[in-house]
């Protein structure tokens, strides 16, 4: 049997058609550290929310710490995820920029909270943070999608077919098959002539036909109906009626098969057309 020689271009390859970079194990671990730290911070923030029972009129520094923990935690989680999945080159830039934006937002919050925490600034900081958040989230999503596309069986199957190795036996069989086909097609055009036998001299007795004759009659209808009541469905008609019935059924089956084939073929054609168009675009 043919063996697969397909290598996993995702972990070993230097890069791939979709541009995903090979990601070292260390980056993965750094990413997971970020992720765990983020989770811890978010947990801490949440704990603050519950312990201090944060509400609009809570003490200012309690609100600030809670907000900082949660904000930093979420950002760290997202950075961690981004580092754990495979990225394109652009992806890493995006992670850097959006991490910077988020941190900036948090920094402004930390330095300006309470003294300078009024209308326009609040919305700027919030907007900045949301932008960073969305960029990290979007980047992770985009790269995961890319990875899935690359992993999808489409290109892999093609690769497999190209590198499939055939055993001698299979090759031999294919050759034999091809030879047989070519003989058959040539031979189907060929017609043997049988008139080169000269004249055959027969003895005095030469009947037109001769042989052992067997007649098969169908049961007369009464017997058939009796039989059927005893064993329903068992129409054992082997004579003329049976032959007629079988040939009608055969014609029907062939007809049905032909129609099915035509339907199937039409369906296939339509799909191929569509698929072909898509490919061309």
């Amino acid at each position, binding site marked *: 049997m043919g063996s697969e020689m397909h290598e996993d271009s995702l972990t070993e390859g230097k890069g791939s058609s979709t541009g995903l970079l090979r990601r070292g194990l260390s980056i993965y671990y750094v990413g997971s550290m970020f992720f765990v730290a983020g989770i811890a911070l978010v947990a801490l923030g949440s704990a603050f929310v519950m312990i201090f029972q944060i509400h609009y009129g809570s003490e200012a520094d309690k609100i600030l710490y809670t907000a900082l923990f949660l904000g930093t935690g979420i950002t760290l989680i997202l950075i961690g995820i981004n580092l754990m999945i495979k990225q394109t080159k652009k992806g890493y830039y995006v992670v850097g920029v959006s991490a910077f934006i988020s941190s900036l937002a948090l920094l402004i919050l930390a330095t300006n909270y309470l003294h300078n925490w009024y209308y326009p600034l609040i919305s700027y900081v919030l907007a900045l943070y949301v932008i960073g958040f969305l960029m990290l989230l979007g980047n992770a999503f985009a790269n995961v999608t890319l990875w899935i596309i690359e992993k999808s069986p489409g290109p892999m199957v093609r690769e497999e077919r190209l590198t499939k190795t055939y055993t001698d036996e299979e090759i031999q069989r294919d050759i034999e*098959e091809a030879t*047989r*086909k070519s*003989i*058959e097609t040539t*031979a189907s055009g*060929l*017609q*043997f*002539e*049988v*008139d080169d*036998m000269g004249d*055959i*001299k*027969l*003895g*005095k*007795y*030469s*009947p*037109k*036909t*001769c*042989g*052992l*004759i*067997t*007649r*098969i*009659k*169908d049961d007369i209808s009464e017997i058939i109906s009796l039989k059927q009541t005893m064993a329903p469905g068992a129409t*054992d008609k*082997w*004579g*003329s*009626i*049976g*032959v*007629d*019935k*079988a*040939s*009608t*059924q*055969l*014609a029907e*089956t*062939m*007809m*049905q*098969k*032909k129609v099915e084939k035509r339907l199937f073929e039409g369906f296939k054609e339509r799909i191929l057309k569509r698929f072909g168009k898509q490919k061309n675009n």
Partner: protein
Amino acid sequence: MAKGLDIGTMNIICAEKEGEDVVFMQQRNAFMNLDSSDLTKNMLDISKVLYIEEEKGISLLGEDAFKFATIFEKEARRPMSHGIISPREKEAIPIMKLIVERVLGQPRSKNEVLYISTPANPVDTDMDVLYHKKTMEALARGLNYDTHVIDEGLAVIYSELSDYNFTGIGISVGAGLTNVTLAYLGTPLMSFSIGRGGDWIDEQVSKSTGLPKEHVTHRKEQISKLSKQVKIGSPDGAITIYYNALVTYIVQNLNKRLAEITPPKVAFPVVVAGGSALPEGFFEMFEKNLRESKLRVEISKIKRARDPLYTVARGCLIAAKTQEEGKRRAGPSLTEQKVEGKTEKKKAQKKSK
């Protein structure tokens, strides 16, 4: 009117409709050479025997060759062996032509449709059926029939599996070969033959018991039942043993070939026909073996053909009749049906998915 013709190693059988009956005309596919003398010729003429006069002598044909073989203490010969006429035995062609002519008769209408059966290529011997197929086709065409050829196994399916939409496995255990076809909705997906049949049993039994082959054949055809209890000294035990071996061999080969295709996921009925399926106990033996071996397809029902010797001829008749009706209505033509090898396999694969 349409006709079906089964050209076998041992028997040539024609089937046709005659009113309410189906009539089978059967003749042994055999001949015997005799030295030519006025005395023998006279004798043969008186006993109304069909013979050919040649330079070398005279040849008796068909059933008569057998009858007179014992009288003249000679051996009846066969134009065909292992299901086909070999290119080396050109001298046998005129003999087969005569037998076919006598069995088939003249066409009753212009371009009467005729289907003849042919073996499929064997899996276990290096033999090509093409020469045989073409020769037989030419013989029948020479008689002005609109001649078509189908596999013997498919003919079995046409005859016996009409209630199963012509889906199933048809097996004909003949003299020279065993033919197998798997069809789906009347279309063969796989056809092959196995180089063993009744003759093989005769040979093996003859070898192991020391009895002459003709004697074994005769004894085999008279045997009342294939059973494990046999009389000491009779060849019946050996016959049962080799029948069993034949059945195992057929089932093994069937399973091997099934591994090479991907048939649709349906349960297939199986029919056994052919002269070697005649003895009582054979069918039970076959059924048991088939059920016990883990076949690669699901088997629904195992059926014995109603009249095993005539099944193939009848299947050919049904094909011919269908073709003739189709010609009248310009409907489907059966001749388009051929095992298409790989493409068909792929289609079957697609279907099964």
